[in-house]
């Protein structure tokens, strides 16, 4: 069938959306667990289930719809206060949620959902709701919400005003079906307003111009009414108001019925003569006395709705209708397409650099002008392409609420998860790869860090422990930290274990930082007992690998008895950065612009004044520096004038001395490849306009490396107060980073016949 691909596309969209709704459902359930009387949360859970059921049935996922329907019923009971929120209900709902996920995976062709589990869950749900046998109607999915005719609430009158938006019909919604659905809630009087219909010549045949004023008499709650419109909430205007007593004059229905009935029966024209009244006279004016108005004069319902129905009264719908006016203008794009887009922009940036190079060389003003224009455009294009990929980390963080909840239950611990900076934005590809490391860190904290409640009480701590997940920006990086207030890391135990495993000699003198670094080694665990949760020593290795792959670093800080915090420092983006291009001899390097503060000149006189120390006096402030020429062991004579680039790092301000600063450079980050993946000081390479290769330096790591190779106690450190903090690098075992850098540079040199920096691993700058 020719329509098949379209249907598949819809199904695909449904699967994607359903997963998003499940995330929402999960967060609602977990919040509900902490706050069991919150009706708003019950409503959120109900709506999520209702949406999954409804759209599931629409796209032919009948089994899924039927399953969800049962759970939805349970929440309907909760909403109508016939069922209380218990741990059992929450846990059952979470299990059901997992089952729905499995069903979605199955529909997407991944794995198979276990039918026995479904049956078990359904049985328990029915036991909970007190509905022993699934009635046939209940087992079958129904696209409509459970009719609330049996709801026990008081019978009330509601004034419902529904104006479909311009594009409602185009989304395949039939407003008449919605009205029929509404009618199932109770007795409904409808008046359609046709006033907005334009002359036929100007009428857009695919747009709905009719709006409706209705009076619904029902025992159902407001939520049940608004749920009818749940799928169209974004493309319509809806107000629902409670009324005291509706006064609708002559009945609408019989009036029409009577007239039409006459036409229905016989097919003879003679009958027409019986109907003599002009059609217009049949108009009736339903009048509604608004609940809030003291004025008794009867006004038309439409006027009432406009004057008396401030939207703010219904925040949930007011918000939906007004806060997402441009909902239709946002589109869903597969991540792969986005990656391709960014790659193309990257290529464009490289080509632009070549164009610039040519324009400069030829000194042709015309080409120069074009080059400048292209430069401006690529720069804007690059920024917008990057911003498209930026996502808040919220969804990733929120996902862990479930993990913490489940683990706390399994481990019989009381743990609260607090989240900070969830709106911090990160490149999508970074976020995607963060899930695993964060999961392992949290599992570790839950299992090893946090003590059981009794032990905590004995240590005069709060019974309930806290895990704090936070994210914040710092220059061109994002800091993501997982902190707990548990028992902390026993450095001595780690040391013993390291000796036991032969990682270090028994008499080695180790700093705390060096000891903590062992935690990241593969297969390392101090746990004597391997539990379900952790202890196999795999987790931290995963963390290290993932963070390395993202060119990030790991900091571990811990204090016995007070807790542990692990901070991941990750680059904002993996694709393109703003860099500063510098030259040392014939070698080019790029330093990230985001960390660079200023460039100043370093003269021989300055050097003499410093008495051989590698420090510069910048407006009274002493800034230690690293001379790249020496750091990379380039043997040639240094020029008369050098330049210092002052950069802000975690360890304070440091300068990097280069021969010449060439200017800013849009830097497309290319990986050095697997062979050089342990080269820490170089975060990648980029291709310059003339085809040569520039290595991208990581100032943070350069400084750390320089500090580490210096003897403790003789450090000239940047302005920073050092706390009891252990700084651990992601890959402590890599000891010869520069050798690889040299090879990388040599390779580029071979290819480009440009002189490479002669680099040696062993010689380091010792300020």
């Amino acid at each position, binding site marked *: 069938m020719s329509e098949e691909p379209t249907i598949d596309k819809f199904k695909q969209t449904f699967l994607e959306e359903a997963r998003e709704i499940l995330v929402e459902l999960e967060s609602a359930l977990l919040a509900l667990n902490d706050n069991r009387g919150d009706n708003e949360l019950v409503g959120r859970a109900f709506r999520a289930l209702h949406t999954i059921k409804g759209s599931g049935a629409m796209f032919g996922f009948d089994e899924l719809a039927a399953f969800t329907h049962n759970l939805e019923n349970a929440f309907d009971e909760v909403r109508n206060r016939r069922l209380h929120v218990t741990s059992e209900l929450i846990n059952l709902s979470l299990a059901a949620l997992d089952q729905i996920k499995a069903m979605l995976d199955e529909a997407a062709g991944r794995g198979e959902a276990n039918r026995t589990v479904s049956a078990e869950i359904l049985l328990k749900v029915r036991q909970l709701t007190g509905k022993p046998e699934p009635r046939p109607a209940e087992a079958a999915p129904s696209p409509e919400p459970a009719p609330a005719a049996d709801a026990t609430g008081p019978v009330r009158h509601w004034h419902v005003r529904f104006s479909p938006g311009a594009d409602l*019909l185009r989304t395949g919604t*039939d*407003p*008449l079906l919605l*009205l*029929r659905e509404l*009618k199932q809630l109770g007795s409904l*009087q*409808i*008046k*359609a307003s*046709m006033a907005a*219909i*334009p*002359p*036929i*010549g100007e*009428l857009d*045949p*695919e747009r*709905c*111009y*009719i709006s*409706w004023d*209705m009076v619904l008499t029902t025992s159902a709650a407001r939520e049940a009414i608004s749920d009818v419109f749940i799928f169209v909430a974004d493309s319509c205007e809806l107000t629902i108001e409670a009324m005291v007593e509706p006064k609708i004059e002559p009945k*609408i*229905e019989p*009036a*029409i*019925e009577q*007239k*039409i*009935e*006459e*036409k*229905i*029966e*016989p*097919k003879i*024209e003679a009958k*027409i*003569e019986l*109907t*003599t*009244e*002009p*059609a*217009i006279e*049949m*108009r*009736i004016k339903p009048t509604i006395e608004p609940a809030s108005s003291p004025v008794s004069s009867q006004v038309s319902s439409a006027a009432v709705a406009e004057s008396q129905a401030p939207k703010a009264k219904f925040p949930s719908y007011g918000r939906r209708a007004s806060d997402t006016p441009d909902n239709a203008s946002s589109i869903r794009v597969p991540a792969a397409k986005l990656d391709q887009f960014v790659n193309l922009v990257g290529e464009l940036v490289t080509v632009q650099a070549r164009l610039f190079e040519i324009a400069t060389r030829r000194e042709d003003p015309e080409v120069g002008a074009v080059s400048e224009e292209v430069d401006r455009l690529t720069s804007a294009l690059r920024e917008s392409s990057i911003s498209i990929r930026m996502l808040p980390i919220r969804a990733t963080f929120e996902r862990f609420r479930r993990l913490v909840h489940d683990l706390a239950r399994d481990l019989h611990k009381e743990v609260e998860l607090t989240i900070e900076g969830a709106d911090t934005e990160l490149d999508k590809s970074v976020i995607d790869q963060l899930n695993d490391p964060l999961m392992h860190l949290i599992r570790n904290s839950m299992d090893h860090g946090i003590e059981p409640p009794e032990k905590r009480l004995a240590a005069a701590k709060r019974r309930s422990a806290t895990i704090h997940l936070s994210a914040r920006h710092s220059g061109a990086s994002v800091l993501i930290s997982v902190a707990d207030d548990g028992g902390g890391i026993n450095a001595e135990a780690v040391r013993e274990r390291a000796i036991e495993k032969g990682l270090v000699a028994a008499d080695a003198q180790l700093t705390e930082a060096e000891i903590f670094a062992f935690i990241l080694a593969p297969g390392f665990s101090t746990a004597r007992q391997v539990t379900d949760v952790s202890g196999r020593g795999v987790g931290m290795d995963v963390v290290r690998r993932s963070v390395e792959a993202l060119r990030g670093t790991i900091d571990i800080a811990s204090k016995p008895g007070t807790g542990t915090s692990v901070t991941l420092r990750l680059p904002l983006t993996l694709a393109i950065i703003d860099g500063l291009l510098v030259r040392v001899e014939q070698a080019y390097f790029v330093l990230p612009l985001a960390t660079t503060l200023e460039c100043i000149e370093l003269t021989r006189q300055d050097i003499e004044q410093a008495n051989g120390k590698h420090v510069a006096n910048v407006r009274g402030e002493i800034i230690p520096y690293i001379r790249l020429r020496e750091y990379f062991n380039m043997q040639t004579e240094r020029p008369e004038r050098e330049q210092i680039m002052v950069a802000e790092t975690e360890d304070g301000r440091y300068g990097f001395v280069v021969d010449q600063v060439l200017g800013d450079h849009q830097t497309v980050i290319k990986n050095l490849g697997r062979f050089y993946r342990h080269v820490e000081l170089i975060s990648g390479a980029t291709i310059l306009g003339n085809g040569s290769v520039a290595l991208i330096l990581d100032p943070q790591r350069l400084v750390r490396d320089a500090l580490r190779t210096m003897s403790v106690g003789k450090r000239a450190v940047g302005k920073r107060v050092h706390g009891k903090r252990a700084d651990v690098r992601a890959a402590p075992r890599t000891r010869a980073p520069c050798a690889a850098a040299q090879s990388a540079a040599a390779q580029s040199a071979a290819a480009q016949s440009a002189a490479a920096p002669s680099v040696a691993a062993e010689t380091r700058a010792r300020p």
Partner: protein
Amino acid sequence: MTQTKSKAPSRNADEGSMAMTLDQSEARCVVRMDGEINIACAAELKKLLLQALASGRELRADLDGATELDVTALQLLWAAEREARGSGRGFTLAGRVPEEIASTVRDAGLERFPVGVDAK
């Protein structure tokens, strides 16, 4: 009496899911709607109604064979009836109204049938 019959193009007339025709005689112009009259053929119905209005004759709607009228059809008929009345003509029903259609109009809460129920 001359009768011209123009059949509006439909997606697949053989399937009979929907069909609309315009029957013109000297005195009146009958818009016949068969099957499901919904958004899929709304543009077509509009064209047909404009054609019928342009004929200057009395307008009749024949819904005998219709099985469904949706919101788009209702508002088009409504607009056409208003236009016809404005130019001193009538747009009324010819023949019987199937129960499904009658109930749709009821459910939609229209204060009257979109086209006139009685003949002038």
